[in-house]
Protein backbone atom coordinates (compact mmCIF):
# COMPACT_ATOMS: atom_id res chain seq x y z
CA UNK A 1 0.00 0.00 0.00
CA UNK A 2 1.40 3.36 -0.99
CA UNK A 3 0.25 6.18 1.26
CA UNK A 4 2.29 8.71 -0.68
CA UNK A 5 -0.13 11.03 -2.40
CA UNK A 6 2.03 14.14 -2.42
CA UNK A 7 3.66 14.74 -5.75
CA UNK A 8 7.21 15.87 -6.38
CA UNK A 9 6.94 19.33 -7.86
CA UNK A 10 9.73 20.73 -10.00
CA UNK A 11 8.91 24.15 -11.40
CA UNK A 12 5.31 23.79 -12.46
CA UNK A 13 5.52 20.10 -13.26
CA UNK A 14 4.37 17.34 -10.92
CA UNK A 15 5.85 13.86 -10.73
CA UNK A 16 4.54 10.78 -9.00
CA UNK A 17 7.92 9.02 -9.08
CA UNK A 18 10.71 10.30 -6.88
CA UNK A 19 13.44 8.49 -8.75
CA UNK A 20 15.31 10.28 -11.53
CA UNK A 21 17.55 8.28 -13.83
CA UNK A 22 20.73 9.16 -15.69
CA UNK A 23 21.19 7.66 -19.13
CA UNK A 24 24.97 7.31 -19.56
CA UNK A 25 27.13 4.22 -19.26
CA UNK A 26 24.57 1.67 -20.48
CA UNK A 27 25.69 -1.14 -22.79
CA UNK A 28 22.98 -0.32 -25.32
CA UNK A 29 19.84 1.70 -25.81
CA UNK A 30 17.47 -1.21 -25.22
CA UNK A 31 19.06 -1.97 -21.84
CA UNK A 32 18.76 1.70 -20.92
CA UNK A 33 15.10 1.83 -21.91
CA UNK A 34 14.28 -1.39 -20.04
CA UNK A 35 15.93 0.10 -16.94
CA UNK A 36 13.95 3.33 -17.32
CA UNK A 37 10.72 1.40 -17.62
CA UNK A 38 11.54 -0.84 -14.67
CA UNK A 39 12.34 2.21 -12.51
CA UNK A 40 8.96 3.83 -13.06
CA UNK A 41 10.78 7.14 -13.42
CA UNK A 42 9.11 10.08 -15.09
CA UNK A 43 12.23 12.22 -15.49
CA UNK A 44 15.57 11.27 -17.03
CA UNK A 45 18.67 13.32 -17.62
CA UNK A 46 20.71 13.07 -20.81
CA UNK A 47 24.00 14.76 -21.68
CA UNK A 48 23.96 17.21 -24.56
CA UNK A 49 27.22 15.66 -25.72
CA UNK A 50 25.36 12.41 -26.30
CA UNK A 51 22.75 14.07 -28.57
CA UNK A 52 23.59 13.00 -32.12
CA UNK A 53 20.94 13.88 -34.63
CA UNK A 54 23.20 12.94 -37.52
CA UNK A 55 23.61 9.30 -36.45
CA UNK A 56 20.46 7.79 -34.97
CA UNK A 57 22.17 4.67 -33.58
CA UNK A 58 24.54 6.91 -31.57
CA UNK A 59 21.84 9.30 -30.37
CA UNK A 60 20.50 9.06 -26.81
CA UNK A 61 17.94 11.85 -27.17
CA UNK A 62 15.56 10.51 -29.83
CA UNK A 63 14.85 7.10 -28.23
CA UNK A 64 14.16 8.82 -24.89
CA UNK A 65 11.93 11.42 -26.50
CA UNK A 66 9.79 8.57 -27.84
CA UNK A 67 8.97 7.39 -24.31
CA UNK A 68 5.67 9.05 -23.58
CA UNK A 69 5.70 8.60 -19.82
CA UNK A 70 8.95 10.47 -19.20
CA UNK A 71 10.24 14.00 -19.43
CA UNK A 72 13.75 14.81 -20.60
CA UNK A 73 16.22 16.89 -18.63
CA UNK A 74 19.27 17.74 -20.77
CA UNK A 75 22.46 18.16 -18.76
CA UNK A 76 25.54 20.23 -19.39
CA UNK A 77 28.15 17.62 -18.51
CA UNK A 78 31.34 18.58 -20.35
CA UNK A 79 30.94 22.29 -19.66
CA UNK A 80 33.92 23.76 -17.90
CA UNK A 81 32.38 27.08 -16.90
CA UNK A 82 29.10 28.99 -16.69
CA UNK A 83 29.36 30.37 -20.19
CA UNK A 84 29.68 26.92 -21.75
CA UNK A 85 26.92 25.53 -19.54
CA UNK A 86 24.50 28.28 -20.54
CA UNK A 87 25.27 27.69 -24.21
CA UNK A 88 24.80 23.94 -23.77
CA UNK A 89 21.53 24.44 -21.87
CA UNK A 90 20.13 26.65 -24.60
CA UNK A 91 21.13 24.15 -27.27
CA UNK A 92 19.66 21.31 -25.19
CA UNK A 93 16.35 23.15 -24.87
CA UNK A 94 16.29 23.88 -28.58
CA UNK A 95 16.96 20.24 -29.50
CA UNK A 96 14.79 18.53 -26.88
CA UNK A 97 12.03 21.07 -26.36
CA UNK A 98 12.34 20.51 -22.60
CA UNK A 99 12.33 23.38 -20.10
CA UNK A 100 14.34 21.28 -17.61
CA UNK A 101 18.09 21.57 -17.31
CA UNK A 102 20.50 19.85 -15.00
CA UNK A 103 23.38 22.28 -14.59
CA UNK A 104 26.47 20.14 -14.31
CA UNK A 105 29.83 21.86 -14.41
CA UNK A 106 32.86 19.82 -13.46
CA UNK A 107 36.03 21.39 -14.76
CA UNK A 108 38.24 18.52 -13.63
CA UNK A 109 37.32 15.66 -15.99
CA UNK A 110 38.87 13.05 -13.71
CA UNK A 111 37.15 13.45 -10.33
CA UNK A 112 34.15 15.30 -11.81
CA UNK A 113 33.52 17.40 -8.69
CA UNK A 114 31.07 20.24 -9.35
CA UNK A 115 32.32 23.83 -9.55
CA UNK A 116 30.21 25.76 -7.03
CA UNK A 117 31.09 29.20 -8.36
CA UNK A 118 30.43 28.54 -12.04
CA UNK A 119 27.34 26.44 -11.25
CA UNK A 120 25.83 29.32 -9.28
CA UNK A 121 26.46 31.79 -12.12
CA UNK A 122 24.97 29.49 -14.76
CA UNK A 123 21.97 28.48 -12.63
CA UNK A 124 21.08 32.10 -11.90
CA UNK A 125 21.23 33.06 -15.56
CA UNK A 126 19.26 30.04 -16.73
CA UNK A 127 16.56 30.46 -14.07
CA UNK A 128 16.13 34.07 -15.16
CA UNK A 129 15.82 32.78 -18.74
CA UNK A 130 12.83 30.61 -17.81
CA UNK A 131 14.49 27.23 -17.43
CA UNK A 132 13.46 24.80 -14.70
CA UNK A 133 16.94 24.57 -13.20
CA UNK A 134 18.27 21.65 -11.17
CA UNK A 135 21.92 22.25 -10.30
CA UNK A 136 24.30 19.42 -9.40
CA UNK A 137 26.29 20.77 -6.45
CA UNK A 138 28.69 19.99 -3.65
CA UNK A 139 26.75 19.22 -0.44
CA UNK A 140 27.08 22.82 0.76
CA UNK A 141 24.12 24.23 2.76
CA UNK A 142 25.08 27.86 2.05
CA UNK A 143 25.35 27.31 -1.68
CA UNK A 144 22.03 25.47 -1.62
CA UNK A 145 20.22 28.48 -0.11
CA UNK A 146 21.88 30.86 -2.57
CA UNK A 147 20.70 28.68 -5.45
CA UNK A 148 17.19 28.65 -4.00
CA UNK A 149 17.25 32.45 -3.90
CA UNK A 150 18.53 32.47 -7.49
CA UNK A 151 15.37 30.73 -8.64
CA UNK A 152 16.37 27.09 -8.93
CA UNK A 153 13.59 24.49 -8.92
CA UNK A 154 15.58 22.09 -6.74
CA UNK A 155 19.10 21.50 -5.54
CA UNK A 156 20.98 18.29 -6.20
CA UNK A 157 23.81 17.79 -3.70
CA UNK A 158 26.18 14.89 -4.27
CA UNK A 159 26.23 11.88 -1.96
CA UNK A 160 29.73 10.99 -3.16
CA UNK A 161 31.77 11.38 -6.34
CA UNK A 162 30.05 10.49 -9.63
CA UNK A 163 30.40 6.81 -10.36
CA UNK A 164 32.19 6.14 -7.09
CA UNK A 165 29.52 4.13 -5.34
CA UNK A 166 30.70 5.93 -2.21
CA UNK A 167 27.15 6.18 -0.84
CA UNK A 168 25.88 9.00 1.34
CA UNK A 169 29.29 10.22 2.44
CA UNK A 170 27.92 13.76 2.75
CA UNK A 171 24.89 12.79 4.87
CA UNK A 172 25.41 15.37 7.63
CA UNK A 173 25.66 18.25 5.14
CA UNK A 174 22.64 17.00 3.21
CA UNK A 175 20.62 16.98 6.46
CA UNK A 176 21.46 20.67 6.94
CA UNK A 177 20.45 21.41 3.35
CA UNK A 178 17.12 19.61 3.85
CA UNK A 179 16.45 21.31 7.18
CA UNK A 180 16.45 24.80 5.72
CA UNK A 181 15.36 24.26 2.12
CA UNK A 182 12.12 25.51 0.63
CA UNK A 183 12.75 23.69 -2.65
CA UNK A 184 13.14 19.95 -3.27
CA UNK A 185 16.46 18.40 -2.32
CA UNK A 186 17.56 15.55 -4.59
CA UNK A 187 20.62 13.46 -3.84
CA UNK A 188 22.56 13.05 -7.07
CA UNK A 189 25.66 10.90 -7.56
CA UNK A 190 27.52 8.41 -5.44
CA UNK A 191 24.73 6.03 -4.50
CA UNK A 192 25.49 2.35 -4.99
CA UNK A 193 22.71 0.44 -3.25
CA UNK A 194 18.94 0.87 -3.01
CA UNK A 195 19.33 0.90 0.79
CA UNK A 196 21.28 4.16 0.40
CA UNK A 197 18.44 5.63 -1.66
CA UNK A 198 16.05 4.54 1.10
CA UNK A 199 18.25 6.22 3.69
CA UNK A 200 18.36 9.45 1.65
CA UNK A 201 14.57 9.47 1.52
CA UNK A 202 14.29 8.62 5.24
CA UNK A 203 16.52 11.64 5.92
CA UNK A 204 13.99 13.80 4.12
CA UNK A 205 15.30 14.06 0.58
CA UNK A 206 12.56 14.69 -1.94
CA UNK A 207 13.99 12.48 -4.65
CA UNK A 208 17.08 10.58 -5.72
CA UNK A 209 19.02 10.58 -9.00
CA UNK A 210 21.05 7.51 -9.96
CA UNK A 211 22.90 6.38 -13.04
CA UNK A 212 26.09 4.34 -12.52
CA UNK A 213 24.51 2.16 -9.83
CA UNK A 214 21.93 1.01 -12.34
CA UNK A 215 24.02 1.01 -15.53
CA UNK A 216 26.93 -0.87 -13.94
CA UNK A 217 24.75 -3.47 -12.22
CA UNK A 218 24.72 -7.01 -13.53
CA UNK A 219 21.00 -6.60 -14.28
CA UNK A 220 20.30 -2.89 -14.89
CA UNK A 221 16.50 -3.28 -15.12
CA UNK A 222 16.44 -5.35 -11.94
CA UNK A 223 18.53 -2.76 -10.12
CA UNK A 224 16.36 0.08 -11.44
CA UNK A 225 13.33 -1.64 -9.97
CA UNK A 226 15.19 -2.18 -6.70
CA UNK A 227 16.01 1.53 -6.52
CA UNK A 228 12.37 2.38 -7.15
CA UNK A 229 11.42 0.18 -4.19
CA UNK A 230 14.20 1.68 -2.08
CA UNK A 231 12.97 5.20 -2.79
CA UNK A 232 9.37 4.23 -2.02
CA UNK A 233 10.38 2.49 1.19
CA UNK A 234 12.44 5.40 2.39
CA UNK A 235 9.72 7.88 1.53
CA UNK A 236 7.08 5.78 3.28
CA UNK A 237 9.29 5.52 6.37
CA UNK A 238 9.82 9.27 6.41
CA UNK A 239 6.08 9.87 6.21
CA UNK A 240 5.32 7.25 8.85
CA UNK A 241 7.70 9.04 11.19
CA UNK A 242 10.80 7.26 12.41
CA UNK A 243 11.09 6.55 16.09
CA UNK A 244 13.38 9.11 17.70
CA UNK A 245 16.90 7.86 18.22
CA UNK A 246 18.34 8.21 21.69
CA UNK A 247 21.40 6.88 23.43
CA UNK A 248 20.20 8.13 26.81
CA UNK A 249 18.40 5.42 28.74
CA UNK A 250 15.49 6.47 30.97
CA UNK A 251 16.73 5.95 34.51
CA UNK A 252 14.57 3.73 36.74
CA UNK A 253 15.30 6.08 39.66
CA UNK A 254 14.55 9.43 38.05
CA UNK A 255 17.34 12.00 38.39
CA UNK A 256 14.82 14.76 38.96
CA UNK A 257 12.77 13.14 41.79
CA UNK A 258 14.21 15.68 44.20
CA UNK A 259 12.17 18.36 42.41
CA UNK A 260 9.00 16.77 43.75
CA UNK A 261 5.74 16.55 41.79
Amino acid at each position, binding site marked *: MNLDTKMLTLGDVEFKSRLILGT*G*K*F*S*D*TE*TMIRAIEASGTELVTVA*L*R*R*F*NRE*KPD*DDLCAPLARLKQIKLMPNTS*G*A*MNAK*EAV*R*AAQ*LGRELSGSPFVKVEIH*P*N*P*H*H*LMPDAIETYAAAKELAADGFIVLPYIPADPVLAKKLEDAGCAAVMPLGAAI*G*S*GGGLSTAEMIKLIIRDSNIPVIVDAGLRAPSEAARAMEMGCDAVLVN*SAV*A*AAADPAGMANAFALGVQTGRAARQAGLMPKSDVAVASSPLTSFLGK
Partner: protein
Amino acid sequence: MSCSHPTSHIPHSTIASLPDWLDPEPWLNRTFSSADIERALSAESPDEKTLAALLSPAAEEFLEPMAARAQALTRRHFGRTIQLYTPLYLSSYCLGGCAYCGFASDRDTERHKLSFEQVEIELAALKKMGLEEVLLLTGERTPQADFDYVLKCVELAANHFHKVTIEVFPMSEHEYGRLAEAGCTGVTLYQETYHPDVYPEMHRWGPKSDLLDRLAAPGRALAGGLRFAGLGTLLGLSDPLFDLLALYRHVRHLQKTQWQAGLSVSFPRIQNETGGFLAPHPVSEKQLAQIIFAVRICLPDVPLVLSTRESAAFRDGMAGLGINKMSVASKTTVGGYGNDGSDEGQFDVNDRRDVETFCTLLRQKKLDPVFKNWDAAYR
Protein backbone atom coordinates in the same frame (compact mmCIF):
# COMPACT_ATOMS: atom_id res chain seq x y z
CA MET B 1 57.76 -9.65 -18.63
CA SER B 2 60.75 -7.75 -19.97
CA CYS B 3 60.50 -5.61 -16.86
CA SER B 4 62.23 -8.48 -15.12
CA HIS B 5 65.67 -7.08 -15.92
CA PRO B 6 64.67 -3.53 -15.80
CA THR B 7 67.61 -1.31 -15.23
CA SER B 8 70.80 -3.25 -15.52
CA HIS B 9 71.96 -1.22 -18.52
CA ILE B 10 71.00 2.19 -17.20
CA PRO B 11 73.83 4.33 -15.86
CA HIS B 12 72.44 6.29 -12.94
CA SER B 13 74.26 9.46 -13.86
CA THR B 14 71.96 9.97 -16.84
CA ILE B 15 68.78 9.26 -14.89
CA ALA B 16 69.57 12.30 -12.78
CA SER B 17 69.10 14.53 -15.80
CA LEU B 18 65.35 14.00 -15.71
CA PRO B 19 63.42 16.45 -13.54
CA ASP B 20 62.72 15.19 -10.02
CA TRP B 21 58.97 15.09 -10.59
CA LEU B 22 59.48 12.61 -13.42
CA ASP B 23 62.43 10.49 -12.36
CA PRO B 24 61.30 6.88 -11.80
CA GLU B 25 64.61 5.83 -10.25
CA PRO B 26 63.36 5.35 -6.65
CA TRP B 27 60.91 2.66 -7.80
CA LEU B 28 63.27 0.69 -10.02
CA ASN B 29 65.22 -2.41 -9.01
CA ARG B 30 62.69 -3.53 -6.43
CA THR B 31 61.52 -7.06 -6.00
CA PHE B 32 57.97 -7.91 -5.07
CA SER B 33 56.34 -10.90 -3.44
CA SER B 34 52.89 -12.35 -4.06
CA ALA B 35 51.71 -10.58 -0.91
CA ASP B 36 52.91 -7.27 -2.38
CA ILE B 37 50.87 -7.91 -5.52
CA GLU B 38 47.75 -8.71 -3.49
CA ARG B 39 48.20 -5.48 -1.57
CA ALA B 40 48.71 -3.54 -4.82
CA LEU B 41 45.54 -5.05 -6.27
CA SER B 42 43.44 -3.62 -3.48
CA ALA B 43 45.37 -0.39 -2.93
CA GLU B 44 43.04 2.43 -1.92
CA SER B 45 45.49 5.11 -3.03
CA PRO B 46 47.59 3.61 -5.80
CA ASP B 47 51.00 5.17 -6.33
CA GLU B 48 54.33 4.51 -8.05
CA LYS B 49 55.01 1.54 -5.83
CA THR B 50 51.64 0.02 -6.74
CA LEU B 51 52.44 0.40 -10.42
CA ALA B 52 55.94 -1.04 -10.03
CA ALA B 53 54.47 -4.03 -8.20
CA LEU B 54 51.79 -4.66 -10.83
CA LEU B 55 54.35 -4.43 -13.64
CA SER B 56 56.75 -6.78 -11.91
CA PRO B 57 57.36 -10.43 -12.82
CA ALA B 58 55.59 -11.45 -9.60
CA ALA B 59 52.36 -9.95 -10.98
CA GLU B 60 52.41 -12.21 -14.05
CA GLU B 61 50.68 -14.86 -11.92
CA PHE B 62 47.91 -12.38 -11.13
CA LEU B 63 46.79 -11.50 -14.65
CA GLU B 64 43.24 -12.76 -14.09
CA PRO B 65 42.54 -10.80 -10.87
CA MET B 66 44.26 -7.78 -12.43
CA ALA B 67 41.93 -8.06 -15.44
CA ALA B 68 38.89 -8.34 -13.17
CA ARG B 69 39.92 -5.26 -11.18
CA ALA B 70 40.69 -3.34 -14.38
CA GLN B 71 37.29 -4.22 -15.80
CA ALA B 72 35.45 -3.22 -12.63
CA LEU B 73 37.23 0.15 -12.48
CA THR B 74 36.66 0.80 -16.18
CA ARG B 75 32.97 -0.02 -15.86
CA ARG B 76 32.61 2.17 -12.78
CA HIS B 77 34.21 5.24 -14.35
CA PHE B 78 33.29 4.91 -18.02
CA GLY B 79 30.33 2.54 -17.99
CA ARG B 80 29.81 -0.17 -20.57
CA THR B 81 30.90 2.09 -23.38
CA ILE B 82 33.79 2.42 -25.82
CA GLN B 83 34.51 5.85 -27.30
CA LEU B 84 35.58 5.79 -30.92
CA TYR B 85 37.86 8.06 -32.93
CA THR B 86 39.80 7.89 -36.16
CA PRO B 87 43.14 9.36 -37.25
CA LEU B 88 43.44 11.46 -40.40
CA TYR B 89 46.97 11.73 -41.81
CA LEU B 90 47.40 15.15 -43.40
CA SER B 91 51.05 15.00 -44.42
CA SER B 92 53.94 12.56 -44.45
CA TYR B 93 56.63 15.21 -44.87
CA CYS B 94 58.99 15.15 -41.91
CA LEU B 95 62.36 16.53 -40.86
CA GLY B 96 62.55 14.20 -37.90
CA GLY B 97 64.99 11.36 -37.44
CA CYS B 98 62.92 8.92 -35.42
CA ALA B 99 64.65 5.59 -35.93
CA TYR B 100 61.39 3.64 -35.71
CA CYS B 101 59.11 5.76 -37.92
CA GLY B 102 58.08 5.10 -41.52
CA PHE B 103 57.90 8.85 -42.11
CA ALA B 104 61.43 9.67 -40.81
CA SER B 105 63.37 11.96 -43.12
CA ASP B 106 65.92 9.28 -44.04
CA ARG B 107 63.27 6.85 -45.26
CA ASP B 108 62.75 6.92 -48.99
CA THR B 109 58.98 6.82 -48.64
CA GLU B 110 57.18 8.94 -51.21
CA ARG B 111 55.88 12.08 -49.46
CA HIS B 112 52.40 13.44 -49.71
CA LYS B 113 50.37 16.24 -48.29
CA LEU B 114 46.65 16.74 -48.60
CA SER B 115 45.49 19.90 -50.32
CA PHE B 116 42.63 21.64 -48.52
CA GLU B 117 40.27 20.26 -51.15
CA GLN B 118 41.57 16.76 -50.41
CA VAL B 119 41.19 17.39 -46.67
CA GLU B 120 37.52 18.15 -47.29
CA ILE B 121 37.16 14.90 -49.23
CA GLU B 122 38.76 12.92 -46.39
CA LEU B 123 36.60 14.64 -43.77
CA ALA B 124 33.47 13.92 -45.77
CA ALA B 125 34.47 10.25 -46.03
CA LEU B 126 35.03 10.04 -42.25
CA LYS B 127 31.76 11.80 -41.57
CA LYS B 128 29.99 9.30 -43.81
CA MET B 129 31.47 6.55 -41.65
CA GLY B 130 29.62 8.14 -38.73
CA LEU B 131 32.65 9.35 -36.83
CA GLU B 132 32.49 12.42 -34.60
CA GLU B 133 36.03 12.57 -33.24
CA VAL B 134 38.90 13.01 -35.65
CA LEU B 135 42.62 13.12 -34.85
CA LEU B 136 44.66 15.14 -37.38
CA LEU B 137 48.27 14.03 -37.89
CA THR B 138 51.43 15.38 -39.47
CA GLY B 139 55.14 14.83 -38.95
CA GLU B 140 57.54 17.42 -37.58
CA ARG B 141 57.06 21.04 -38.64
CA THR B 142 58.00 21.39 -42.32
CA PRO B 143 57.55 24.11 -44.95
CA GLN B 144 54.97 21.79 -46.56
CA ALA B 145 52.96 21.25 -43.36
CA ASP B 146 53.57 24.22 -41.07
CA PHE B 147 51.47 25.84 -38.36
CA ASP B 148 49.23 27.73 -40.78
CA TYR B 149 48.51 24.50 -42.64
CA VAL B 150 47.53 22.69 -39.44
CA LEU B 151 45.43 25.68 -38.33
CA LYS B 152 43.49 25.69 -41.58
CA CYS B 153 42.94 21.92 -41.39
CA VAL B 154 41.62 22.28 -37.82
CA GLU B 155 39.19 24.95 -39.02
CA LEU B 156 37.97 22.70 -41.83
CA ALA B 157 37.55 19.72 -39.50
CA ALA B 158 35.79 21.80 -36.84
CA ASN B 159 33.13 22.70 -39.41
CA HIS B 160 32.10 19.05 -39.54
CA PHE B 161 33.17 17.33 -36.33
CA HIS B 162 32.25 18.00 -32.72
CA LYS B 163 35.66 16.91 -31.48
CA VAL B 164 38.87 17.70 -33.35
CA THR B 165 42.25 16.81 -31.88
CA ILE B 166 45.78 16.89 -33.24
CA GLU B 167 48.87 14.74 -33.21
CA VAL B 168 51.37 17.05 -34.87
CA PHE B 169 54.66 18.78 -34.05
CA PRO B 170 55.02 20.45 -30.64
CA MET B 171 54.38 24.17 -30.79
CA SER B 172 54.31 27.28 -28.64
CA GLU B 173 51.61 28.01 -26.07
CA HIS B 174 50.43 30.88 -28.26
CA GLU B 175 50.09 28.58 -31.27
CA TYR B 176 48.15 26.04 -29.21
CA GLY B 177 45.86 28.87 -28.13
CA ARG B 178 45.15 29.76 -31.75
CA LEU B 179 44.32 26.13 -32.51
CA ALA B 180 41.93 26.06 -29.55
CA GLU B 181 40.16 29.15 -30.90
CA ALA B 182 39.90 27.43 -34.27
CA GLY B 183 38.06 24.51 -32.68
CA CYS B 184 40.81 22.14 -31.61
CA THR B 185 39.97 20.33 -28.38
CA GLY B 186 43.00 18.23 -27.60
CA VAL B 187 46.50 17.13 -28.40
CA THR B 188 48.11 13.72 -28.54
CA LEU B 189 51.83 13.92 -27.86
CA TYR B 190 53.73 10.80 -26.97
CA GLN B 191 57.07 11.14 -25.30
CA GLU B 192 57.93 7.82 -27.04
CA THR B 193 60.55 7.07 -24.37
CA TYR B 194 61.39 8.95 -21.21
CA HIS B 195 64.74 7.24 -20.92
CA PRO B 196 67.47 9.85 -21.27
CA ASP B 197 69.96 7.41 -22.82
CA VAL B 198 67.59 5.78 -25.25
CA TYR B 199 65.79 8.97 -26.25
CA PRO B 200 68.67 10.48 -28.28
CA GLU B 201 69.41 7.11 -29.91
CA MET B 202 65.86 6.95 -31.19
CA HIS B 203 65.45 10.63 -32.07
CA ARG B 204 68.62 11.22 -33.99
CA TRP B 205 68.03 14.72 -35.34
CA GLY B 206 65.40 17.42 -35.70
CA PRO B 207 63.42 19.31 -33.08
CA LYS B 208 62.22 16.07 -31.54
CA SER B 209 65.76 15.22 -30.42
CA ASP B 210 65.24 17.66 -27.51
CA LEU B 211 63.76 15.41 -24.79
CA LEU B 212 62.93 18.21 -22.37
CA ASP B 213 61.21 20.38 -24.96
CA ARG B 214 58.97 17.50 -25.96
CA LEU B 215 58.30 16.71 -22.32
CA ALA B 216 57.06 20.25 -21.73
CA ALA B 217 54.83 20.37 -24.83
CA PRO B 218 51.64 18.80 -23.38
CA GLY B 219 51.78 21.33 -20.55
CA ARG B 220 52.11 24.14 -23.09
CA ALA B 221 49.13 22.80 -25.04
CA LEU B 222 46.96 22.73 -21.92
CA ALA B 223 48.13 26.15 -20.79
CA GLY B 224 47.35 27.42 -24.29
CA GLY B 225 43.72 26.37 -23.98
CA LEU B 226 43.43 22.81 -25.25
CA ARG B 227 41.23 20.69 -22.98
CA PHE B 228 42.67 17.22 -23.49
CA ALA B 229 46.18 15.82 -23.69
CA GLY B 230 46.96 12.25 -24.66
CA LEU B 231 50.25 10.87 -23.41
CA GLY B 232 52.03 7.67 -24.22
CA THR B 233 55.25 5.81 -24.49
CA LEU B 234 56.13 3.78 -27.56
CA LEU B 235 56.44 0.35 -26.02
CA GLY B 236 59.43 -1.55 -27.30
CA LEU B 237 61.91 1.32 -27.43
CA SER B 238 63.19 1.10 -23.87
CA ASP B 239 62.70 -0.69 -20.60
CA PRO B 240 58.91 -0.63 -20.14
CA LEU B 241 59.11 -0.34 -16.36
CA PHE B 242 61.20 2.82 -16.62
CA ASP B 243 58.94 4.34 -19.27
CA LEU B 244 55.65 3.43 -17.62
CA LEU B 245 56.69 4.75 -14.23
CA ALA B 246 57.81 7.99 -15.86
CA LEU B 247 54.58 8.14 -17.87
CA TYR B 248 52.55 7.65 -14.69
CA ARG B 249 54.52 10.43 -13.01
CA HIS B 250 54.02 12.68 -16.06
CA VAL B 251 50.24 12.18 -15.83
CA ARG B 252 50.23 12.84 -12.09
CA HIS B 253 52.38 15.95 -12.57
CA LEU B 254 49.98 17.37 -15.16
CA GLN B 255 47.01 16.56 -12.94
CA LYS B 256 48.58 18.69 -10.25
CA THR B 257 49.84 21.53 -12.44
CA GLN B 258 46.96 21.69 -14.98
CA TRP B 259 44.04 20.74 -12.79
CA GLN B 260 41.40 21.19 -15.47
CA ALA B 261 43.19 19.00 -17.99
CA GLY B 262 41.59 15.89 -19.37
CA LEU B 263 44.43 13.40 -19.66
CA SER B 264 44.48 10.08 -21.43
CA VAL B 265 47.08 7.37 -21.93
CA SER B 266 47.70 5.32 -25.07
CA PHE B 267 49.67 2.13 -25.50
CA PRO B 268 51.35 2.20 -28.91
CA ARG B 269 53.58 -0.84 -29.31
CA ILE B 270 56.35 -1.36 -31.83
CA GLN B 271 56.37 -4.83 -33.19
CA ASN B 272 59.55 -6.23 -34.60
CA GLU B 273 58.49 -6.54 -38.18
CA THR B 274 57.22 -2.95 -38.47
CA GLY B 275 59.14 -1.11 -41.21
CA GLY B 276 62.28 -3.17 -40.63
CA PHE B 277 62.97 -1.55 -37.25
CA LEU B 278 63.83 -4.03 -34.52
CA ALA B 279 62.38 -3.09 -31.17
CA PRO B 280 65.18 -3.35 -28.61
CA HIS B 281 62.71 -4.20 -25.82
CA PRO B 282 59.88 -6.07 -27.54
CA VAL B 283 56.67 -6.26 -25.54
CA SER B 284 54.42 -9.29 -26.05
CA GLU B 285 50.63 -9.18 -26.09
CA LYS B 286 50.52 -10.75 -22.66
CA GLN B 287 52.92 -8.11 -21.33
CA LEU B 288 50.89 -5.36 -22.99
CA ALA B 289 47.75 -6.67 -21.30
CA GLN B 290 49.55 -6.67 -17.94
CA ILE B 291 50.70 -3.09 -18.58
CA ILE B 292 47.18 -1.90 -19.44
CA PHE B 293 45.65 -3.59 -16.38
CA ALA B 294 48.35 -2.09 -14.15
CA VAL B 295 47.87 1.43 -15.52
CA ARG B 296 44.07 1.16 -15.21
CA ILE B 297 44.38 0.12 -11.57
CA CYS B 298 46.76 3.01 -10.84
CA LEU B 299 44.90 5.65 -12.90
CA PRO B 300 41.27 4.56 -12.46
CA ASP B 301 39.66 7.69 -13.90
CA VAL B 302 42.00 8.33 -16.85
CA PRO B 303 40.78 7.27 -20.30
CA LEU B 304 42.98 4.49 -21.72
CA VAL B 305 43.28 4.21 -25.48
CA LEU B 306 44.12 1.31 -27.81
CA SER B 307 44.72 1.78 -31.54
CA THR B 308 44.42 -0.41 -34.59
CA ARG B 309 48.14 -1.18 -34.40
CA GLU B 310 46.97 -4.14 -32.34
CA SER B 311 45.25 -7.22 -33.70
CA ALA B 312 41.50 -7.59 -33.86
CA ALA B 313 41.55 -10.44 -31.36
CA PHE B 314 43.63 -8.49 -28.83
CA ARG B 315 41.51 -5.36 -29.21
CA ASP B 316 38.31 -7.35 -28.78
CA GLY B 317 39.68 -8.92 -25.63
CA MET B 318 40.89 -5.64 -24.13
CA ALA B 319 37.77 -3.58 -24.88
CA GLY B 320 36.32 -2.67 -21.50
CA LEU B 321 39.17 -4.46 -19.72
CA GLY B 322 40.97 -1.24 -18.87
CA ILE B 323 40.57 0.19 -22.36
CA ASN B 324 37.64 2.58 -22.83
CA LYS B 325 38.59 4.40 -26.02
CA MET B 326 39.65 2.94 -29.38
CA SER B 327 40.45 4.04 -32.88
CA VAL B 328 38.52 2.34 -35.61
CA ALA B 329 38.86 1.77 -39.37
CA SER B 330 42.17 3.67 -39.30
CA LYS B 331 44.27 4.39 -42.35
CA THR B 332 47.82 5.54 -41.64
CA THR B 333 48.41 6.70 -45.19
CA VAL B 334 47.95 10.27 -46.37
CA GLY B 335 44.63 10.33 -48.19
CA GLY B 336 43.54 6.91 -47.09
CA TYR B 337 39.81 7.45 -46.73
CA GLY B 338 38.41 9.42 -49.61
CA ASN B 339 41.44 9.97 -51.82
CA ASP B 340 43.66 7.43 -53.51
CA GLY B 341 46.05 6.74 -50.66
CA SER B 342 48.11 3.85 -51.90
CA ASP B 343 51.52 4.80 -50.44
CA GLU B 344 53.09 3.35 -47.31
CA GLY B 345 51.62 4.25 -43.96
CA GLN B 346 53.39 5.44 -40.82
CA PHE B 347 52.90 2.04 -39.23
CA ASP B 348 51.10 -1.17 -40.05
CA VAL B 349 47.44 -1.33 -39.17
CA ASN B 350 46.65 -4.77 -37.78
CA ASP B 351 42.95 -4.40 -37.16
CA ARG B 352 41.53 -3.42 -40.55
CA ARG B 353 37.87 -3.96 -39.76
CA ASP B 354 35.40 -1.32 -40.86
CA VAL B 355 33.28 0.68 -38.43
CA GLU B 356 30.20 -1.49 -38.71
CA THR B 357 32.07 -4.77 -38.21
CA PHE B 358 33.90 -3.45 -35.16
CA CYS B 359 30.75 -1.96 -33.64
CA THR B 360 28.88 -5.23 -34.14
CA LEU B 361 31.62 -6.98 -32.20
CA LEU B 362 31.49 -4.40 -29.38
CA ARG B 363 27.74 -4.78 -29.15
CA GLN B 364 28.09 -8.55 -28.92
CA LYS B 365 30.36 -7.93 -25.96
CA LYS B 366 27.62 -5.72 -24.43
CA LEU B 367 29.66 -2.58 -24.95
CA ASP B 368 28.08 0.53 -26.46
CA PRO B 369 30.18 2.12 -29.22
CA VAL B 370 30.03 5.87 -28.61
CA PHE B 371 30.72 8.09 -31.61
CA LYS B 372 29.78 11.45 -30.13
CA ASN B 373 30.83 12.16 -26.58
CA TRP B 374 31.54 15.86 -26.94
CA ASP B 375 29.75 18.87 -28.28
CA ALA B 376 30.92 21.84 -30.26
CA ALA B 377 29.09 23.95 -27.65
CA TYR B 378 32.09 23.35 -25.39
CA ARG B 379 34.59 25.17 -27.59
